[in-house]
């Protein structure tokens, strides 16, 4: 594990990045579904040190989610099958948002639905709230009816993005599924539909079977793989998509250190999100911020934006 040491030279580093007109004090965001609605981690970190936080996926009506067990450990990763448990958009606006709306960080809501109308209606309700950006999840592999059906065909991605844009007054991030043959096709469809930014990757569908009980470990049988195991797949997809679209990207998938974050930015991400890594260490998101800063100081780079897409392909 990386021991995070604060850069000790005098380089002044500009950590700010801008996505669709929204300024982030640094490029580190929390990944949706791993950070609740923000309050749980406040005992462990100063949330205002983060560029932004993405909240747990919201749906129009409350959702109970899938049966437990909902988590399994795999080599360098985990599978989850939470299934979008959430209190619904109304209760969120009433009970959850007030507690976090004054946090000094970018607030990103993550939305899911069963129909295009669902998405439009949630986006509309959030448009007048204190949320700064909306991330549209069309890639949750854990819910049959939701998300993923929209996320795997370019035509539907284009259509849903276009429709939601009409109802959405906040910058719209479209979150892509890695469970596709050609992610650039999907990315281009989202961009053409009007996405202001793209985030990737959501989890990869996986399964674990307990050989003693002969049953899948997850009650849902399958779940989404995240954590370091998926990092090479995520970096590849960010790189491919960066070469295919012009909108900014938020990269994620297995980030555990500042170095990992730098790798995603070199591949083409303007910002990164930390998810599963926070289960290992609730301070990880802040350590990633510090790790990026240290890398920049060590290299004498004074603007984090210089990293974006700076990979030199062979």
């Amino acid at each position, binding site marked *: 594990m990386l021991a995070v040491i604060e850069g000790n030279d005098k380089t002044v580093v500009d950590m700010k990045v801008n996505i669709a007109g929204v300024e982030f004090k640094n490029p580190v965001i929390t990944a949706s*579904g791993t950070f609740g609605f923000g309050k749980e981690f406040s005992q462990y970190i100063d949330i205002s040190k983060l560029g932004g936080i993405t909240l747990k996926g919201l749906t129009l009506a409350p959702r109970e989610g899938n*049966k437990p*067990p909902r*988590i399994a450990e795999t080599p*360098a990763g985990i599978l989850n099958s939470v299934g979008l448990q959430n209190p619904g958009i109304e209760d969120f606006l009433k009970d959850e948002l007030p507690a976090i709306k004054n946090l000094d960080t970018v607030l990103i809501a993550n939305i899911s639905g069963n129909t295009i109308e669902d998405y439009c209606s949630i986006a509309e309700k959030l448009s007048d709230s204190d949320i700064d950006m909306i991330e549209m999840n069309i890639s949750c592999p854990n819910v049959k009816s939701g998300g993923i059906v929209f996320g795997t065909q370019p035509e539907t991605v284009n259509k849903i993005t276009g429709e939601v844009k009409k109802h959405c007054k906040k910058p719209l991030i479209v979150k892509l599924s890695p469970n596709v043959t050609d992610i650039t096709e999907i990315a281009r469809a989202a961009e053409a539909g009007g996405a202001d930014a793209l985030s990737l990757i959501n989890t990869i569908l996986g399964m674990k079977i307990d050989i003693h009980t002969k049953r899948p470990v997850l009650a849902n049988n399958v779940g989404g793989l995240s*954590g*370091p195991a998926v990092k090479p797949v995520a970096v590849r997809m960010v790189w491919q998509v960066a070469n295919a679209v012009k909108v900014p990207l938020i990269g994620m998938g297995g980030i555990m250190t500042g170095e990992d974050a730098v790798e995603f930015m070199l591949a083409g991400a303007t910002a990164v999100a930390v998810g599963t890594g926070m*289960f*290992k260490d609730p301070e990880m998101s802040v350590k990633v911020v510090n790790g990026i800063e240290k890398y920049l100081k060590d290299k004498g780079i004074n603007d984090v934006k210089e990293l974006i897409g700076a990979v030199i392909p062979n």
Partner: protein
Amino acid sequence: MGKNLCKIYSIDEIAANITDVVIESEFIASNAKPGQFLHIDCGDEINNFLRRPISICDVYDNKVRFIFEVKGNGTNRLAAKKRGDILDVLGPLGNGFTVSDEYKQPMIVGGGIGIFPLLNLAKQFDKKAEVFLGFRNKDRLVMENEFKAVSKDVSIVSDDGSCGIKGLVTEPLINRLENGVGDIIYACGPTPMLRAVKTLAEKYKVKCQLSLEQRMGCGIGACLVCSCQTVFTGTKKYKKVCADGPVFWSDEVTLND
């Protein structure tokens, strides 16, 4: 509640595959309530990076004790730690048992690894608690004397009769409840045991708290993986074992998942 780097003060195998650990942490020792747990990083390997939830067994001075059985990869690594090693521990986490002077005849029921959090609970009742402990067999029998020292009475039960009474740990409990003894039951152990205790509590109309287990991610209420089904005025709802529990009132949980 906090992230703590704690030095291991002692670590001993007290029965086959059962390890008894004492760590140094003034913060945890002074904040822990019976029934709360620790979320422990068992090794710095990316490969096995989920923490493991382990109940607090006891606290004294600025020390915290927990006991665990080696099951898989994580507990195996944890058992290999040495005195003086530093453990990365989140805690104390979750809601513990409700302890109150109101309860004059607490009945404490534990099965298997479920007995560990009950020692500190029994201690709170100034030798008023009656304790019922179930073990697979005599090789697994631990802590009998420690419980005796802090309880009014301790009944030992084993699956095969190799120690204590042969049978289910609920049997001596039924006996006491039949006699009208018991104004609260606290239980921790395997789900079938918890189901039986819940049924008894309903039958004998005794208040009852159960400590549940579920696989965890964050341990602090943020990821929603550790759900258990609860019911409130007829509506079923998933709650979080880590943050809403692990201790629940028995009429709140369905134990169906």
